């Protein structure tokens, strides 16, 4: 720990990131450019989130990292260890115990509270990027509030699939002004963005952008009157804890079409199992070879 400055980054870098975070909070949904640093991990592994976390952490924080909802995947484990070593902070897997949560592509199932900070790892912060590749143009489009193209994209979804097929990174409008990419969270999580009591910070390392949502900010998922936004999830209970209200991962269990659905939020699922909730496929034996329960198509 003494080999590094607290939380790895030097103080001048942290000041630069902190200034960007404050401007981001003052202009919710707007992408603030920042001078992203080389981190001891490749771009695409959460360098934006790591830099934002480094600028936000204090020694008293309890830090949690999730990757697609899970505390125990490579990305989550390595970032958690990184801050254990460089900041000496306590870490946890419990959502309710954490003060700073870094996340890749999920919002925890349990409602976050005031005093918590949620830091997102963001790959492409620009919601218009795949519609207009030029940064000079997308800047202008944000400046002029020219978001028609985004609605055309959603409309093309409807004309091709009969419904809005965008299922993650679903665009939102913040406080009636900026269209924002909420990072590749499933659209199931979109309704949580606006109701949140916690501060939400988004860091994109490779793209060198930070954006933010203060608590209780108005966040509206884009839609049409006749095709209203719908937060969707797999229509199953969790196989392990039986939860009906959580976002589910589909897990292939054999080579004969067997599959199960389990909560993507591992802490939520483990908490429910500890509280006595048991799902239909929870036999205390990993991936039972018994005939699998029939699941609807």
């Amino acid at each position, binding site marked *: 720990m003494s080999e590094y400055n607290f*939380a790895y980054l030097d103080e001048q870098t942290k*000041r*630069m990131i902190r200034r960007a975070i404050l401007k981001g909070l003052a202009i919710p949904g707007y992408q603030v450019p920042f001078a992203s640093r080389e981190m001891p991990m490749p771009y695409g592994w959460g360098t934006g989130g790591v830099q934002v976390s480094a600028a936000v952490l204090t020694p008293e924080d309890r830090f949690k990292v999730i990757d697609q909802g899970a505390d125990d995947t490579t990305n989550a484990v390595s970032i958690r260890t990184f801050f254990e070593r460089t900041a000496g902070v306590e870490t946890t897997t419990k959502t309710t115990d954490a003060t700073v949560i870094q996340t890749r592509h999920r919002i925890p199932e349990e409602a976050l509270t005031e005093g918590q900070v949620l830091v997102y790892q963001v790959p492409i912060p620009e919601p218009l990027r795949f519609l207009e590749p030029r940064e000079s143009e997308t800047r202008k489009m944000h400046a002029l509030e020219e978001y028609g193209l985004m609605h055309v994209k959603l409309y093309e979804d409807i004309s091709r699939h009969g419904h809005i097929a965008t299922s993650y990174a679903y665009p939102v409008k913040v406080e009636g002004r900026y269209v924002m990419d909420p990072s590749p969270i499933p659209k199931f999580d979109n309704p949580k963005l606006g109701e949140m009591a916690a501060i939400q910070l988004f860091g994109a390392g490779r793209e060198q952008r930070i954006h933010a949502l203060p608590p209780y900010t108005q966040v509206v998922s884009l839609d049409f009157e006749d095709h209203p936004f719908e937060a969707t999830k797999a229509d199953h209970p969790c196989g392990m804890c039986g939860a009906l209200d959580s976002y589910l991962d589909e897990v292939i269990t054999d080579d004969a079409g067997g599959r199960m659905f389990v909560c993507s939020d591992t802490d939520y699922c483990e908490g429910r199992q500890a509280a006595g909730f048991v799902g239909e496929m929870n036999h205390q034996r990993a991936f039972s070879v018994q005939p699998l329960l029939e699941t609807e198509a």
Partner: protein
Amino acid sequence: MQAETLSGGFADPATQSAHAFRSVMEAMARPGTIHDISGAAPPAPLSNAAGAVLLTLCDTETPVYLAGEMDCAAVRAWLAFHTGAPVTGPSQCMFAVGTWSALVPLSPYAIGTAEYPDRSATLIVEHPALTASGVTLKGPGIKTSASLSLPDVQAFHDNHTLFPLGLDFILTSGDRLAALPRSTEVQ
């Protein structure tokens, strides 16, 4: 050089600035809430809170405007020693610090551009007393409504109408601070 120039900075910059930043961030994210901030003991007339904000956010990359009596030898020397921030006029600054009457009028400060609204000044307003009463605030970061004692109403209202352009304010008093970003509606 006076002894007070060398003292009054963060003794442990990494952790003290981290704590100070969390106070500033909570204040900016929840307009109207009042937070404690500590760690700095700058020369008068700078308050401890304003000193901590300057230490946390300013360095050689951030021009600072010292308004009114803030522009004195003691503050200039302290700021130069602890942050290295260049001192400039209001139109060039990223941060300005002073009492409300010294900071106004607000017209010279940078409010950002349509494409880069973040390129705007942050004003650190030294305020005699911060209380959660007075003007009603609404907007992002505020669940229903909040109240804050402000030095002016019309100026903050006008600033909000510029959104997404505009100035952001950090109000400091003694060891406490609150913030008023441009997104906040002042009634």
